[in-house]
């Protein structure tokens, strides 16, 4: 007879995250409940969880890059990124955002994902520049169009980050994949995983880039 009870552990994660409870507590509670329902006693569960955490310490070593990033920020890395992005200013809205998408994907792929982001670059730079470009080509913008352009600026940042960062092998998600598969006996090198992020990254650029060009056309149609 199959024991279906451990599935409650999954349900607990889903409900816990959905209720916005602290993820560290949700994960710990789910681990303990899953283990108990799987037939372990409490000491066994805590030991298994502790051993698993210890076996996965490699995930924590991705943070050793922080001193380098921190020192560069101290010397104006974010300001330099901003200057680079400001250089895109003579483009149409869509093309400007395509350049930003490329910037975001490429920098994330080499581990510089912290040089950009919603508070650092989108709000102070990318969104205002995209709006200015839209006004320059199409005259004054109505409220809906302003909303659309701003939303696309934020969306472009997310797409660029998500489909760039996994090409950098020393990122939490790649190490998490590697360590999860090790549990089942598949020992992969991080680069083997990271190269498989490239096809999706290219497709993300093409799909989102096409939508940005369509945004340009839509803006042109609204022109007076």
């Amino acid at each position, binding site marked *: 007879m199959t024991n279906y009870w*451990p599935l409650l*552990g*999954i349900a607990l994660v*889903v409900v816990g*995250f*959905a209720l916005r409870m*602290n993820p*560290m507590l949700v*994960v710990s509670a789910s681990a303990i409940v*899953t283990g108990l329902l799987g037939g*372990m006693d409490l000491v066994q569960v*805590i030991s*298994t*969880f*502790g*051993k698993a*955490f*210890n*076996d*996965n310490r*490699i*995930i*924590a*070593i991705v943070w*050793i890059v*922080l001193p*380098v*990033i921190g*020192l*560069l*920020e*101290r*010397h*104006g*890395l974010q300001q*330099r990124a901003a200057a680079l992005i400001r250089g895109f200013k003579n483009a149409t809205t869509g093309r400007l955002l395509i350049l930003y998408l490329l910037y975001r994907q490429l920098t994330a792929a*080499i581990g*510089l994902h912290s040089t950009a982001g*919603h*508070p650092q670059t*989108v709000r102070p730079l990318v969104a205002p520049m995209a709006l200015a470009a839209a006004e320059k080509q199409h005259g004054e913008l109505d409220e809906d169009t302003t909303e*659309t352009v701003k*939303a696309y600026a*934020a969306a472009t*940042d997310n*797409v660029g980050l998500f489909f760039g960062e*996994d090409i950098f*092998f020393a990122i939490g*998600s*790649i190490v998490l*994949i590697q360590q*999860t*598969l090790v549990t089942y006996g598949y*020992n992969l090198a*991080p680069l083997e995983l990271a190269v*498989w*992020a490239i096809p999706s990254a290219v*497709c993300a650029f093409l*799909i989102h880039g096409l*939508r940005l060009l369509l945004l340009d056309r839509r803006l042109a149609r609204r022109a007076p």
Partner: protein
Amino acid sequence: MITLHWLYALAGAMFAAFAFLSALDRSNPKHFGNAAFWGLMALSLLAGDLIGDFGNGLLVLGLAGLAGFGFIGRSHPPTTSEEEREAWSQRLGNTLFLPALIIPITALVGTLLYNYTPLGGYGWIEAKRETYVFLGLGVLLALATIFIWLKPPPLAPLQESRRLIDAIGWAAVLPQMLAALGVLFAAAGVGTVIGEVTQAIIPKGNVFATVAVFGLGMAMFTIIMGNAFAAFPVMAAAIGVPLLIQGYGGNPAVVGAVGMLAGFCGTLMTPMAANFNLVPAALLELKDQYGVIRAQVATALPLLVVNILIIYLAAFR
């Protein structure tokens, strides 16, 4: 032989420094909480093999308790002002990006040299882990370069990285927690159960349908939980490993890497991922708090299809 333990020692020393500097940082009202949290991380990295499985278990529960009950907070270590940074940026120009490039280049070149020249034959480095070792070397080279070039104060790398790690907070430990949860799922037989159920629903031998359920499942779980990291151990235990890899002989690298990216498509479509989708809507003063998600759906859906196709076409050649 250089093993991962050398890297654990390096990272452990860094977290120990965070703990020490946190303890002394009176400007942060929660400085003892931060010191305890990063101290436990240091203990895990430096001495995890000495304190036993149960000891490690208590350590994890300690981390979860400190984070979950609000004992850690953001700090503001000494750093440069906005004006100083602007001046540095103007003076140094785009060369400022170069030290950061040292890290991936060292890792990539090192890995390739080690694997495709006779160097690897000496067995200096733990197998399959050479990229991490070269990552560590790259970090040290980059730090040395910055010190020779810009001559920052000696404590600056630790204070600046403490500023960054405190901004990330407990989220820095979450991926490792989730990986451990995945182990518990596997040990309790969660994968077997879901695998059986799925096998009963999906026609046996239909690889494409199984890949599609895997990709959609990653996206769906991510939409519900707001986090692809949390979805991955679940879907790997349920479908990825028992069906796609073990059952149909799929390439584990493709199933794993692209499966995670299918989850990222879900992240683009969920208000649960507030940092990415709701916070920017507020930052940009959008009237529609779901405006960013609306702008992303038409990218996310075709991309999800593409990711499913990539798994199907590349993993089963």
